[in-house]
């Protein structure tokens, strides 16, 4: 054994002693080796048992925590998830769930601090930034929320990152809409729509609906149209397109989509509320188109519609004047004049003279009792009253009696009456509040008459 070599000559006794030492050392080292092996084996078994028990405990507490979180027992979830984390330190999923539990328990500062720390170790994590965005949103910190939403969108995601990023973007869009940041929401919606594959119709419907909420009806309608090109039988797209076209004042187009929706066989399977809304909308748009004095109509039919609309507008005006407190007798005369006009010979309507009295009465009302007028209709601007007076004056300037044949032969008169009808609806809506029934439909036409039949 080299380690026992001696440079000095040894006696017999010393050589025997050396041999004994060699034997003893060999035996000791072998024993030590055996002890080490045995200890390694025991330690390994001990550790394996410990590790499996740790994993079992971690799993048990994680399951309990998740169940508590789902059940809305945030405090219990915190205790359970903390315990799970103690047995599985650094387990990212549990850490995130724990932070979620903290947030659910209303411990926002702790949850934010916890997520911030998680974010420090993983700044590009999508899920952590999403949670931070939600926390900031809960605290109405729009800037922070948007910053974290953007980081989440461009962050790392496990599994299907594309879908998760899209979901986050939609969540951010909904947040923007809720905060009335429509311009920002529209920008994000265009990005979302641009990124989505064309065959993902469901997502495009979601985007289009969000566009509607962000008051981006043009893009919403365009998106619905695109969906219908790919899937003409899409009920949601048809309803959405009808609704959006209606919002844009494109009533002919709206009717087309809504008819398609109502006649769609799958409408039967929809909730009552959905089908009722669609039918109501279709009914309104149909009626609206019946009221619309389209230039495309033959002269007679158009004139008949103008006369009908005129009656509706006058009735609305009289009603509004009555509400404004003009003299009872004048108001009575005006009110009486309109239905009476309708009951006269077909195709002939007279201008009620009583409107002149109403005008005077209205003027004196605003001169002598301005405060009363303001008190009755506080939000109405002063020019509303002036507009009402102006409309009244213009009605009084109209010929007393208008027949169908006269309207057919006098396009200028027809046009001026149409304009007066629209102005009446607009002014009365301004002064007396939003109208209902046919007046509401006429008002819609009045807002964009040229778009009614646009497709």
């Amino acid at each position, binding site marked *: 054994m080299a*380690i*026992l*070599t*001696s*440079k*000095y000559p*040894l006696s017999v006794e*010393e*050589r025997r*002693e*050396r041999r004994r*030492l060699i034997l*003893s*050392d060999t035996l*000791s*080292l072998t024993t*030590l*080796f055996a*002890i*080490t092996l045995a*200890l*390694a084996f*025991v*330690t390994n078994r*001990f*550790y394996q048992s*410990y590790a499996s*028990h*740790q994993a079992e*405990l971690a799993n*048990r*507490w994680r399951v309990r925590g998740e169940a508590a979180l789902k059940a809305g027992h945030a405090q219990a979830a915190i*205790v*359970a998830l*903390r*315990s799970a*984390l*103690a*047995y599985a*330190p*650094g387990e990212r999923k549990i*850490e995130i769930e724990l932070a979620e539990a903290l947030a659910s328990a209303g411990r926002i*500062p*702790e949850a934010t*601090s*916890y997520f*911030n*720390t*998680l974010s*420090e*170790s993983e*700044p590009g994590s999508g899920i952590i930034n999403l949670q931070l965005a939600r926390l900031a949103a809960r605290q109405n910190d729009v800037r922070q929320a948007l910053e974290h939403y953007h980081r989440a969108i461009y962050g790392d995601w496990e599994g299907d990152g594309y879908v998760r990023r899209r979901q986050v973007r939609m969540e951010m869009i909904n947040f923007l809409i809720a905060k009335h940041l429509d311009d920002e929401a529209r920008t994000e919606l265009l990005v979302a729509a641009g990124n989505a594959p064309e065959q993902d119709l469901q997502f495009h419907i979601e985007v289009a609906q969000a566009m509607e909420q962000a008051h981006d009806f043009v893009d919403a309608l365009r998106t619905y149209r695109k969906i219908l090109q790919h899937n003409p039988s899409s009920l949601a797209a048809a309803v959405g397109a009808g609704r959006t076209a209606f919002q844009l004042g494109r009533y002919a187009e709206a009717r087309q989509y809504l008819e398609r929706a109502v006649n769609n066989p799958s409408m039967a399977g929809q909730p009552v509320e959905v089908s009722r809304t669609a039918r109501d909308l279709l009914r309104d748009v149909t009626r609206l188109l019946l009221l619309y004095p389209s230039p495309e109509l033959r002269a007679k039919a158009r004139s008949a519609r103008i006369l009908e609309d005129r009656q509706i507008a006058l009735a609305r005006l009289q009603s509004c004047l009555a509400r404004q407190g003009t003299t009872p007798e004048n108001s009575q005369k005006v009110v009486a004049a309109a239905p009476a006009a309708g009951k006269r010979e077909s195709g002939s309507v007279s201008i009620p003279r009583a409107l002149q009295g109403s005008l005077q009465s209205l003027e004196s009302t605003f001169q002598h009792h301005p405060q009363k007028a303001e008190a009755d209709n506080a939000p109405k601007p002063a020019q509303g009253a002036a507009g009402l007076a102006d409309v009244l004056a213009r009605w009084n300037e109209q010929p007393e009696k208008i027949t169908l044949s006269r309207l057919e032969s006098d396009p200028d008169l027809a046009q001026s009456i149409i304009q007066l009808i629209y102005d009446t609806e607009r002014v009365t809506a301004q002064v007396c509040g939003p109208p209902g029934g046919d007046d509401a439909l006429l008002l819609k036409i009045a807002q964009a008459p040229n778009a009614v039949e646009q497709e």
Partner: protein
Amino acid sequence: MNIQNGGLDTETLEEQSRYTPEPPDIQKIAPHRDERLFLVLSIFFGILSGLLVVCFRVAITWFQVLTLGSAPHPGQLRLLFVPMAVGLLVGALVQLVFPAARGSGVNQTKAALYIYNGFISFRTVVGKFITSALAIGGGFSLGPEDPSLQIGAGVASMVSRRLRLSRDRLRMFAPIGAAAGLAAAFNAPISAILFVVEEVIGNWSAAVLGSIVLSAISSVVVARSFWGPEPMFRIPSVTIEHSGELLAYAALGVMGGVSALIFSKALAFLRPRLRQLPPWTRFCQPPLAGLMVGAIGFFGAPEVMGPGYGAIDQAMHGFFTWKFLLALALLKIFATTVSFSSGTPGGMFAPTLFIGAMLGASIASFEKAFFPQFSVSVGSYALVGMGVLFAGFLRVPLTSVFMVLEVSGNYSIVLPVILANTIAYLVSRGLQPVPIFETFTHQDGLDLPSMEEQREESTLHLEDALVPVNVPIFSGSDPVGKIATEEATVAAPVFLVSLRDGSWYAMTREELSAAAATSTPQAPLESTLKPERVPLLFPDLPLDSAIPYLSRWPVLPIQNRASRGKLEGVVTMDDVIRRYQRK
């Protein structure tokens, strides 16, 4: 059975007397045996310590789950009573079966090295393992690192005794085993090596350093094969964007230094008072301490119980508010003080780290709450806080820096760590001159060397005793007859001879007389000299390096390192002694 001095003296001495040292002829029949076994055994100690420490840590966790449940939280009655019951059991075991298991383990290892020739009994190792595992697992506010250190040292001591190694080797095995035990407990070999060098050995000895490194590395390899290669704590990279941020770390250093002082004072106050109580009270002290710690857990802070690594991790992840973190730091100081002072076996490392982490995280959380414009990382502050307390309380500045770097595996934090640790160390040292381990040593009636003093002791060099050449100088080519008759040599008892090869010879008057008597007068002086030459000594060498030669040479020339043969001065035994006496 004497349990004074932390169970260090009587029992150890009794057991030590049973150990027969090696027969003296081993050095003759196998002169290199010890040296070669030393390295092989270092690796074995590392592996054995690593395995034992893994078992120790696992045993603690098992016992913790068994007694305190898998999810201790406030309001559980068991938190109140389990530590008390465990304290009763541990108190009885320490008093009746394992008296040497008392204490943390660091001073006991030092005592083994300096007093008992590296002797640590098997009973002590077993006792330390069992009682520490019970106490820490039962909720006492103590840590497993110091006991691991002693277990490692004990294993090394047992094996080296079995192999009948020389006394010198036997003594050196205690720190080697200690490094292995600590390295496995911390999963940090460099910190363990540095701690043993800073706190146990006290100096960098090349002879033992290699073995310490081997054993520490071996034990960490074993430990990592179980725990995995991950660092103990994970924190993100720290970027100091503005140098002003270092001010916050400096503030943490000051707070850490003050906290270390409070912690040290509390221990220095309570421990001797409890030890002065009648012996029978030592059965009651651990259960009472357990009850107090249990009450803290029961009424709201179970994080304080046990080593608290889980809570440290949570603090690093910003789980707690700054007020709660501060409360946890203070409660931990209290809980550890009563746990340790009661004589319950267990270490101080983990509580120190806990307190530091809570302080650091508290400052970071406070900053985040009130100064959101600062980019504060709670994890970094907690980590630096751990190092700060380590430096301030345990007074091991170098270890504290490397410990932080190793347990986090993050070297980007080095600048704040060095700054904060240095401040904490200076503050603590300025306010509490005696380190805590030394205080314990004095309380135990022992007189172990102070490593802090040793580290800072200034070494004397030859230049400190050097005097100008005050003896005659001759050339080796000068004839003997001429020199013997010169007036200068007649009076001088000794003179220097410069030789052709640049070496020097210190010749006495008697030697010259003898040379003159036996040689022709024309013979060159060099031919009459004995073959040996004065050693080559330089001014920067330690002063004691001259002592072995002064018995042979009455005067030693000190030469210039740059020009061979040029003298800087001379030293004599009187000069050396005078210099030492002046110190």
